[in-house]
Structure formats: C-alpha cells, structure tokens
C-alpha cells in the first residue's frame, strides 16, 4: 500500500482551537488546486479533511494531517493523540455523537463527521486505541468518475 508518493506534506492541527478549525482544510484545498486536480476531487477531499479536522479540534489534543499525492489517488492520514473511539461501529452511524453543547454551537458534533468522510472518499479506514488516539486513513481516486452524494 505504501508506494512512494510523488509529494507529501504534513499539517499540524491543535485540539480545542475552534477559532482556527477549518484552516487546515482550506490550506490543503489550495494545495490540491495547485496540483490541478478535478474540481469534484478537490471538493470531496476538502469536505473529508474539514470533518476530520473538526473531529480533532473537538475531541483530540493534537494531530497531524498528512497529504500524500500518488499518480492516481490522493491519500490522507490523520493521526491524533486523544481519547480514541471505544466503539467505531457506533460512531460510524449517523446521529451518534458524544459532542458537547459548545461543539454543537459551532455547527458540528451531530454525529455526521465520520459518515460524511466515508461518503466522500473511495477508501476509508478508522483505527483507534482508547486512551492513545485515532488514525483515519482515506483516499480519493483522481481518475474516478464523480461519486454521487
């Protein structure tokens, strides 16, 4: 799976930094635009990145979002240090959330983040160690046809 990427760049995300939540997704969007990718690919990746970034802001202490560019796909890994997810199947169901009122006041925390990431990506994987952190890996194929939804 870990072939050599053409390009890779890492972006730090700080937990609890609500004022800046979304900046990494926006910066990565700029990078994807420079790569000249199709608009639909950029949009799907940006939506997934934004949801992943907000998950870190809401729940984790810190994380690194890494973008790896391959000839036929863009892979993203979000590795956080945080509480982890005890029951991933539960968290993957729409509407399931442990968010607080403060998180919901920011327009997130409705239990749609992980499903939104999965819906917008062609490959998706969550691994989590309770008390250690969560790793998200997802990818969008740059040669694929636009995905519905």
């Amino acid at each position, binding site marked *: 799976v870990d072939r050599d990427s053409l390009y890779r760049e890492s972006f730090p995300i700080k937990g609890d930094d609500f004022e800046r939540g979304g900046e990494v997704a926006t910066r990565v969007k700029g990078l994807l635009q420079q790569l000249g990718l199709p608009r639909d690919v950029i949009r799907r990746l940006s*939506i997934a990145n934004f949801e992943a970034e907000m998950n870190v802001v809401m729940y984790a202490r810190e994380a690194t979002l890494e973008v790896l560019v391959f000839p036929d796909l863009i892979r993203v890994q979000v590795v956080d240090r945080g509480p982890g997810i005890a029951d991933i199947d539960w968290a993957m169901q729409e509407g399931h959330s442990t968010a607080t009122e403060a998180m919901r006041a920011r327009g997130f925390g409705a239990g749609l983040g992980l499903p939104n990431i999965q819906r917008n990506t062609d490959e998706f994987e969550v691994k989590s160690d309770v008390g250690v952190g969560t790793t998200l890996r997802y990818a969008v194929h740059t040669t694929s046809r636009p995905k519905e939804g």
Partner: protein
Amino acid sequence: VLTCEILSGDDLLDLDIACCFAADLMSDVLASAPNGALLVTGLASSQMVHTAEVADLAAIVLVAGKRPEVEALAFARQRKLPLLLTGLSMFEVCSLLSQHGLRGAVRKE
C-alpha cells in the same frame, strides 16, 4: 429582496445562484449542499466560512441580525466570499428567496 448589509464581496455580487441551502449544522451543509449554492445560516463562527470555502458555495446570508466572528469576516474578505447580513429570521429569508424563484437544493441519495 432581503435588505442585507454587505460585509464582504460587494464587488462580487452579480452572481447567478442555482439553489439555496439553509442550515445551522455545517455537517448537513457539507453532506448535502451542491456547489454553487447560497448558504443561509444562523451560525456566525469561522466554521461557517470554512464550510462555504471547502464546499464551493457561492455566498452566505447570515440571518437574525447576527454578526460574524472577527476571524470569520477576515477569512471571507481574504477569500473573496460574499457575506451578507440580514435582520430577518431564517424562515423569512427562505420564504422571500423562494417567492423570488430560488429553488432548494435537491438532496441526492
């Protein structure tokens, strides 16, 4: 139609907007709003403008007299994203836009 105050993008308002999506929940917007849509929202935080940016939305109308957070306004201006304010409620805004022919976003499943 809405008597809005224009906070950002007053030179960019000659827009053709295909449809409208109204929500305070940004995950709903990210899940369902098509690109080029107008976002009607009561959320004044920076996540509102980042949502519009990543989802390629055309413009934002902030309802119920809310003022955007400082970071949100700075981001909208930097990204040339039209941001309009109105004292009308979300329901009134949607109703007026609908009367003037704007359609809702069709949810794809």
